């Protein structure tokens, strides 16, 4: 995160070349995360790429001369997550290609290729959306609990509670037990 803070500072105050280079580094560092988040909400690559572009356009506009500048108080991923998620959901609602849904996470999660993990998407689909989202952010995206709270704009205690319940379900599930058995 500290390195991101430094790069953001260069984007805020650096000259043309340094700022562009710093932004490029931020983009290359976080674009996979944004694509991964986008693909949880939109079903095709083209839409995910649109989300990627919109998310980084949003970030870019935070910096002068268009924006007032950005001060990072949490990790950059916790800032990018809600932008990517909202962008994807907006795209999803606008497009006639996708069925409308109040569920914030699509049911068509990518299926795994190996046998051991093939039950996991089924297991995840069985979790309530809010718990699934926290679980995915914690163990797939490796966000800290505080960053998850920031990204979802919810109290830290709520994050812990949702994760606790998600883990409990996961540990007790037959799919997980099958996966963990020798």
């Amino acid at each position, binding site marked *: 995160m500290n390195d991101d803070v430094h790069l953001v500072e260069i*984007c805020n105050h*650096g*000259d*043309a*070349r*340094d*700022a*562009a280079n710093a*932004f*490029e580094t931020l*983009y290359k560092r976080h*674009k*996979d995360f944004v*694509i*991964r988040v986008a*693909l*949880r909400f939109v079903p095709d*690559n083209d839409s*995910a*790429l649109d989300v*990627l*572009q919109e998310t*980084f*356009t949003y970030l*870019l*506009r935070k*910096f002068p*001369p*268009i924006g007032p500048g950005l001060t990072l108080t949490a990790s950059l991923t916790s800032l990018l997550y809600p932008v990517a998620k909202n962008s994807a959901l907006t795209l999803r609602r606008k497009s006639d290609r996708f069925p409308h849904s109040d569920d914030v996470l699509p049911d068509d*999660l*990518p*299926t*795994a*290729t*190996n046998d*051991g*993990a093939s039950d*996991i*998407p089924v297991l*995840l689909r069985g979790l309530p959306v809010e718990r699934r989202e926290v*679980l*995915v952010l*914690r*163990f*797939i995206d490796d966000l800290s*609990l505080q960053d998850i709270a920031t990204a979802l704009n919810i109290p830290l205690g709520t994050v*812990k*509670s949702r*994760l*606790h319940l998600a*883990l409990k379900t*996961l540990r007790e599930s037959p799919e*997980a037990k099958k*996966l*963990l058995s020798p």
Partner: protein
Amino acid sequence: MTHNDDEFEELPEALVEALKSANEAVPLITARVDREVLKMAREQFAGRKPAWRRRPAWAAVAATVLITIFVVQLDQPMQQANLPMRAARPADISDVLTLARE
């Protein structure tokens, strides 16, 4: 509901790996998006002056402050020397001796 923070770190590695592989993003060709995003960034930042061109303004301000301080300090001894003569009282021997010392 209270939770021990450690429990959030405890998930068997096999399960974490399975979760990750289940959510693995498929490889994407993003060259076009890469180009467009980075082009936008270059265009937005293009108007910014290089650091060396922004320095002279600060250097000029700093130089002006230093010169002002120097001039004021040069002027101070003369003012001190003139003080007795400008005082609203008749000159006396102490004023003469002060001037003589200067």
